[in-house]
């Protein structure tokens, strides 16, 4: 592995880990707050899938970094300016519709990313993708079913779902951006060219939204910055909770 490729792969694994941890953490905020017990269980399941995925990416990143850091150093000892997750994933828990819509957007995204990543020339990334693909089929089905129920259910659930879609749409565009790092990896068959996934994502999501009687928004605004650590004001507060105990006891084991 050349130095450039190694550095890019380290950054890439970190990004994918950040995505998974931030989303997994957000979902975990629903536990004991769900509308009924089955949902607490289901959301905990999804959270476990994503946090587990984060651990695999971070573990690989730590090996690539080869500087003594562990998965926990990646998760707990980086500031939010160094986190490179997509902004969509750090948006707050919101109400149930908001979380499910964000989840739908993310799940459909990964249902397109992972089948590409599983072909990666990098065996480790491919292995993580292989494990994650199975879960993702379930995730998409679950999110899709929920958006259907909420979109078509009652006038109130429909309103909340439409509002969530309108509020979150602008955060989805950066999911398909490519920068030099990801371009280098895509060119070398290691990373996924996400710019090629936009149309399919739009098609898949639009089909689900339309069937749920939800209007697909225009692409009139877009907020970007996740991959360069330029976050919304949400991540700082999330990492505050996530990191406080670990940071309060530097160098300790848990």
């Amino acid at each position, binding site marked *: 592995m050349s130095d450039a490729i190694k550095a890019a792969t380290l950054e890439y694994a970190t990004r994918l880990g950040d995505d998974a941890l931030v989303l997994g953490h957000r979902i*975990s905020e629903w536990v004991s*707050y769900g509308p009924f*017990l089955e949902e607490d*269980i289901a959301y905990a399941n999804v959270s476990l899938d994503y946090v587990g995925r984060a651990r695999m990416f971070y573990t690989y990143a730590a090996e690539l970094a080869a500087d003594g850091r562990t998965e926990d150093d990646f998760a707990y000892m980086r500031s939010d300016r160094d986190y490179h997750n997509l902004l969509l994933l750090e948006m707050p828990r919101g109400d149930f519709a908001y979380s499910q819509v964000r989840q739908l957007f993310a799940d459909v995204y990964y249902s397109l990313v992972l089948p590409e990543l599983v072909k990666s020339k990098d065996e480790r990334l491919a292995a993580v993708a292989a494990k994650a693909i199975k879960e993702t089929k379930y995730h998409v089905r679950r999110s899709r079913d929920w958006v259907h129920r909420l979109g*078509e259910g009652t006038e109130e659930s429909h309103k909340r779902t439409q509002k969530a879609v309108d509020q979150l749409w602008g955060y989805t565009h950066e999911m398909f951006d490519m920068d030099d790092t990801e371009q280098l990896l895509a060119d070398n068959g290691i990373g996924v060219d996400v710019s090629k996934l936009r149309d399919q994502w739009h098609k898949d999501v639009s089909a689900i939204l339309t069937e749920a009687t939800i209007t697909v928004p225009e692409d009139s605004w877009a907020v970007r910055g996740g991959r360069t650590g330029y976050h919304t004001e949400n991540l700082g507060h999330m990492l505050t909770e996530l990191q406080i105990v670990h940071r309060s*006891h530097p160098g300790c084991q848990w």
Partner: protein
Amino acid sequence: MMTPEEQNFMRKINAEEKIEPKDWMPDAYRKNVIRQMSQHAHSEVIGMQPEGNWITRAPSLRRKVVLLSKVQDEAGHGLYLYSACETLGISRAEMIEALQKGTAKYASIFNYPTLTWGDVGAIGWLVDGAAIVNQVSLQRTSYGPYARAMIRICKEESFHQRQGYEALLVLAKGSPEQKQIAQDSLNRFYWPALMMFGPHDAESAHSAKSMQWKIKRETNDDLRQKFIDQTVPQIEFLGLEHPDAAIKWNEERGHYDHGDIDWEEFYSVINGNGHCNRQRIEHHVAAHEEGAWVRDAITAYNDKKNANKVKNVA
């Protein structure tokens, strides 16, 4: 004079045969088991809160995953127990209403706050530990669905108890601050864990009938003694100080003698002076009320789908 049904019922009980949902049972037996099972379910559900309080702050990814799994399992146990309880002719909605109104209780241990990460380990080790001692005994309870639920739940909870103990072990062998955290958690949860077994049997209102009907298989004090005995070496292995200065091996009894439990604290907490009594119910009610529109949406959606099915068939 016992009626034929009563006689048959007691014959089964005495022969260690399970009572199943379709069997005849005395009204008082049904009520007793409903009370115990539903409150057991409520405890699992309410117990998600003090532990859930630390999911976002779990200090390592592994601990985060383990804690998420634990809380998820508790939800599952609650679900399973609610379902098993419904076989007795009460609905989940009725049980939830009783919990939220305060007519049904949950284990008072969950009225205590989780103040540190150490408390997560202490709950896994001591609270789940006490629950397991109780649940192992309940594997032989007379009501079939309850007994089977206990067998299933015990398997999962043993895993979580070990995880909790292991989390505390790491603290106890860690930095001075970490060790202090572990000791502090042990100090705060030990006695309340002993109280989980309930009052001395002489003082317990429900005990006599429960024993006769083999809903309950062992006395509160016997179960408590088991727990005390198993916990002494566990505390030693952690290298922590035992919170009970009077703990002492009694060769004659073959058990540990122990100090008096502060039953005033027990009754004080269970009667409303705990740190979290109000919060646990308010949290449950708030989540339930906030989720009303979601449940309504599901109902409306299902109705629409069924109407369509009928339409398509017709």
